[in-house]
């Protein structure tokens, strides 16, 4: 079954296509469902299909030989899961796993090549998206190298906090819910350290932990904390 048009409209790669072109693309796409914890992409394997997230949340991650997980990105609807491997023809640089029920749109890389031919606006869009990805990874390297854990936790909370506008629109959280383990895997530390940092921020009155919610009480103080760098 071809992917629903409303999913394609959310994909930045194709957002500037005319309705006719979008319909043309749609004919080459299909939908696939995954349940929580299912692996969608496996590190080191080739990708013959480009997947975009249509609904739900997906994490991309790498695992060290000792089994330690480093989350690279949490993907939201519209994000591509494996564009680098599809575009350069190499193996997947990370795995992708569903964080809950997920629907993805797929398009065979051979079909993608046909569809991209003669559509330079999409090629430019892809370059912009990949450039943005480089910025994200540089930011991750900077965080892991120059920020202490408390600063990284603060930055993560700011990054994943629901905005009021989002919440008013959907009456529910749009951003993925994160476990302390996932937070730790995103900022390169242990779960216990994240727990301690959260309790510390709570003791300072910057956040409040209310059962399943972390509420940012003092946004400016959290921002100041996130801007702190390690002096080396």
């Amino acid at each position, binding site marked *: 079954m071809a992917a629903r048009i409303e999913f394609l409209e959310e994909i930045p790669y194709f957002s500037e296509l005319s309705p006719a072109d979008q319909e043309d693309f749609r004919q080459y796409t299909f939908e696939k469902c995954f349940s929580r*914890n299912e692996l969608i992409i496996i590190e080191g394997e080739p990708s013959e299909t480009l997947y975009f997230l249509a609904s739900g949340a997906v994490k991309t991650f790498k695992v060290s030989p000792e089994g330690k997980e480093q989350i690279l990105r949490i993907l939201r609807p519209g994000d591509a899961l494996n564009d680098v491997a599809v575009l350069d023809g190499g193996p997947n640089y990370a795995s992708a796993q569903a964080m809950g029920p997920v629907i993805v749109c797929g398009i065979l890389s051979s079909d993608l090549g046909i569809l991209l031919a003669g559509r330079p606006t999409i090629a430019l869009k892809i370059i912009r998206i990949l450039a943005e990805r480089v910025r994200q990874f540089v930011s991750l390297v900077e965080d892991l190298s120059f920020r202490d854990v408390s600063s990284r936790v603060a930055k993560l909370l700011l990054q994943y*906090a629901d905005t009021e506008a989002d919440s008013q629109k959907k009456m529910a959280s749009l951003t993925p819910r994160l476990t*302390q383990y996932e937070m730790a895997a995103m900022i390169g530390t242990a779960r216990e350290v994240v727990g301690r940092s959260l309790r510390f921020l709570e003791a300072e009155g910057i956040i409040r932990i209310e*059962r*399943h*919610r972390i509420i940012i009480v003092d946004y400016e103080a959290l921002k100041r904390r996130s801007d702190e760098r390690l002096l080396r």
Partner: protein
Amino acid sequence: MARMPIICHEQCTGCGVCIAVCAPHILVLRNNIVSFIEEPQECNYCAQCEAVCSTGAILCPYEIVTASTAKYTEHAPNL
């Protein structure tokens, strides 16, 4: 009903460590798989069960919201 930790039954090995650390005693083993008791209102979402689970079968996810957003997400569905 208050948001509860998520139990992935297919990943549970029935080791029972989570039951041992659960302060309000709301977890039990049923058919060698961990489950909540009938009316687990006592859960305080301390996330100790998640911390000790070696297979990742218990998840205690958090929403991150600003104070002004909190009112909108209070009753969001538990997906």
